[in-house]
C-alpha cells in the first residue's frame, strides 16, 4: 500500500464530501425558503410596526430577491464560514453551534461508547448462548426497546430515577439559578447521567441484535467447524475466531449510527431539558430561527459524514483483505 493510493482515496472522499455538502446546503435552503416561515415575522415576534418599517426590514432580509440569487449568497457565505446570525440568541450561528455542540458532544460520546461496548458484549453473550434464557432475555429487551420511542424511554427513566427514587435531578445542564460557568463538575456530571443512560439503553439494541446474529452465523461457519474439529471450544473459540470476524461489521454499524445518535440526542435533550445541540435544534425549528436551523442541518450532515468516513477507515485497520484492495477504489 503506498501513499499515492491513500491520497487518491482521501481525494475521492473529499470530492464526495463537497458534493454532498453543496447538495445538502441547497436542498435545505430551498425547502426552508419554500416553507411558510417569513423571516420578517420571525424577527418581529408579533411586534406591531408600520408599513414603512416593515419594508425596510424586508429590504434588509432580502425577502424579495430571486431564489437563485439567495442560494448563491448563502453558498458564498457558507464558503467563507459565515452561517449568519441566530435570531434567538442574537449571536453568530457558528458560535451558538460550537457552544451547544460541545455540551452535547460529551453526552453523545459517552452514550456512543457505552452503547457500543455494552451492546456488543450483550450480543456476544446472547449469540454464544443461542437459544438459552440469556439469549431470550437479550432478544426481548432489544425488541422492546427498539419498538419504544426514545423520548418515551427517557420519560420512563426520568420518572423512575428522578421522581420516584429521587437519585438524580430532573433535568437541565446545571442547577437552576447557577451560571453554567460557575457549576461544579459534580453538579454538571450528575445531570449528565440520565440522558446518557437513556441514549445508551436505546442505542445498544440494534448493535446487540446485529452482533448476536453475526456471531451465530460465524459460529456455524466452516472455519469454526474446522476449529472445533481441532479441539478448540468454549470462550476461547469465540475469542479467537468469533470476535475478530464480527468486530468489523459491528464497528461499521456503530459508526453508521451517528445519525441515530444525533436524532436520539434531539429527543432526549428535549425530555431532560439538557441545553445541547438537540434542544437548540428544536428551539430553532419552533421559533423560526432559519439561520440557526440551517447551520444545525449543515453541522449534522458533517457529523454523519464523519461517522461514515470513520467506518470506512476502520475497515482498513481490521480487515487484511481490505488492506490490499480498498485503496484501489
Amino acid at each position: 500500500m503506498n501513499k499515492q493510493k491513500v491520497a487518491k482515496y482521501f481525494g475521492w472522499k473529499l470530492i464526495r464530501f463537497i458534493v454532498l455538502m453543496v447538495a445538502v446546503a441547497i436542498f435545505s435552503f430551498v425547502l426552508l425558503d419554500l416553507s411558510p416561515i417569513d423571516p420578517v415575522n420571525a424577527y418581529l415576534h408579533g411586534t406591531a410596526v408600520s408599513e414603512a418599517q416593515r419594508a425596510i426590514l424586508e429590504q434588509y432580509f432580502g425577502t424579495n430577491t430571486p431564489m437563485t440569487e439567495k442560494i448563491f449568497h448563502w453558498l458564498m457565505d457558507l464558503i467563507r464560514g459565515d452561517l449568519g446570525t441566530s435570531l434567538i440568541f442574537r449571536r453568530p450561528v457558528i458560535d451558538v453551534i460550537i457552544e451547544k455542540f460541545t455540551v452535547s458532544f460529551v453526552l453523545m460520546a459517552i452514550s456512543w461508547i457505552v452503547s457500543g461496548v455494552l451492546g456488543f458484549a450483550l450480543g456476544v453473550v446472547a449469540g454464544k448462548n443461542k437459544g438459552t434464557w440469556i439469549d431470550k432475555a437479550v432478544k426481548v429487551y432489544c425488541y422492546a426497546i427498539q419498538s419504544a420511542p426514545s423520548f418515551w424511554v427517557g420519560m420512563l427513566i426520568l420518572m423512575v430515577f428522578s421522581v420516584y427514587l429521587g437519585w438524580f435531578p430532573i433535568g437541565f445542564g446545571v442547577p437552576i439559578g447557577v451560571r453554567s460557568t460557575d457549576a461544579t463538575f459534580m453538579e454538571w456530571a450528575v445531570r449528565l447521567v440520565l440522558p446518557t443512560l437513556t441514549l445508551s439503553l436505546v442505542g445498544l439494541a440494534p448493535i446487540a441484535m446485529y452482533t448476536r446474529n453475526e456471531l451465530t452465523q460465524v459460529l456455524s461457519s466452516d472455519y469454526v467447524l474446522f476449529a472445533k474439529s481441532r479441539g478448540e471450544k468454549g470462550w476461547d473459540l469465540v475469542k479467537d475466531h468469533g470476535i475478530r470476524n464480527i468486530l468489523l461489521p459491528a464497528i461499521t454499524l456503530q459508526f453508521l449510527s451517528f445519525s441515530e445518535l444525533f436524532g436520539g440526542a434531539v429527543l432526549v435533550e428535549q425530555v431532560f431539558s439538557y441545553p445541547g445541540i438537540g434542544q437548540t435544534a428544536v428551539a430553532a425549528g419552533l421559533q423560526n430561527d432559519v439561520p440557526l436551523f440551517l447551520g444545525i442541518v449543515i453541522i449534522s450532515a458533517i457529523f454523519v459524514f464523519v461517522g461514515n468516513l470513520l467506518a470506512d477507515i476502520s475497515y482498513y485497520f481490521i480487515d487484511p483483505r481490505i488492506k490490499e484492495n480498498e485503496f484501489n477504489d
Partner: protein
Amino acid sequence: MDNLLEVENVSISFIQYTKGLNQRDLKVITDLTLDISEGEILAVLGSSGSGKSLLAHAIFGILPGNANLNGKIKFKGKELSQEDKEEIRGKNIVLVPQSVNFLDPLMKISDIAIGHCDSEEERKEKKIRQREIFEHYNLDPEVDDMYPFQLSGGMARRVLVSTALLADPDLVVADEPTPGLDEKTVEETLNHFKHMKDQGIGVLLITHDIHAALEVADRIGIFYSGYVIEIALKEDFSGDGENLLHPYTKSLFKALPANGFEVIKGHQPLHGEIIKGCPYYDRCDMKFDRCKEERPELVDVGNNKKVRCFKYEEGE
C-alpha cells in the same frame, strides 16, 4: 493390525418441516459401516451431495444441532460419546477439510495452524513445530504471515494437510481433498496421504473422485443412497472387474472410460426416497424377488471385504 476406527451401522437424519408444521425424519445416511486399521487408507467413495461429509462431521462430533446420529463410532475399540469426541478431536483424530473456506479469513496462516495456546511457551513450541512441518511441505516463511485469501490452490491444500500433522494424529479424516485442483496438485496431495500411511497413520479419505481413491486407497467403501454397499480391495478394481462383488460396483467400474464407458440407467434414489428393500433394486440386473421387500445386511465375505447383497449371503 488393530482397528483404529470402527463405524458401525451409523445413520444420520435431519428433522425437516414439510407442509405447515408436519415434520418428517429425513435420513441422509441410513447404514454406514466401515473400519480402518493403523497405516491403512480407506476411501469412502460416493457421489457429490450424498452426505459423505456428514460422516466426517459425525466422527468429530460437529454435526449441526438438528442432526440425529445413531449407531456406534469406536476409536481404538472404545465407543465414543460426544464428550470423548470433544476430548480426542484435534489430538488423536484430525480433519483435513475441503477448502480454504475452512480457514479463518481474518487470521494469519501460522496462527490458524498453531491454534489456541494457553501460554506463551506453548505458542513458541508449537510455532517451531509448525515451521518444521511447513518447511517439509515446501511452504516458505512468508506463508506464515499470509491470510487465507492470499493462498493459491496448491498452497492452500498443503496448508490444510500440514495443519493435520501438527497434532501428531493416529487418524486423519480427509474430506474431499482433491476437487478443483490441477493434476499435479492432486498427485502431490495424494502423495501426502501415502506418506502419512507410511508413518502408521490411518487415513479415511472421503471423496467422489474414483481416480484419487484408486490411486492411494487400500480399500474402498462404496457409498450408495445412504448405505455402504460394498467394501472392496483396491486390487479388485482391475481386469474386467470380476473380483468386485456388488452389481453397482461392477457397473461403476465399467462406466470408467478405460473400461468400456458403459452407463447404467436410472439414478441413485434421493434422500427421502427411502425404499423398503435393497437401495439398488430398481437398477439391478440380477435381482431376486426378496430384494424388493427385504434389505440385505452388509456381510463379511472374508479377506477384509464386505458386501451388501443377497447374492453373496449363505444359502443363496
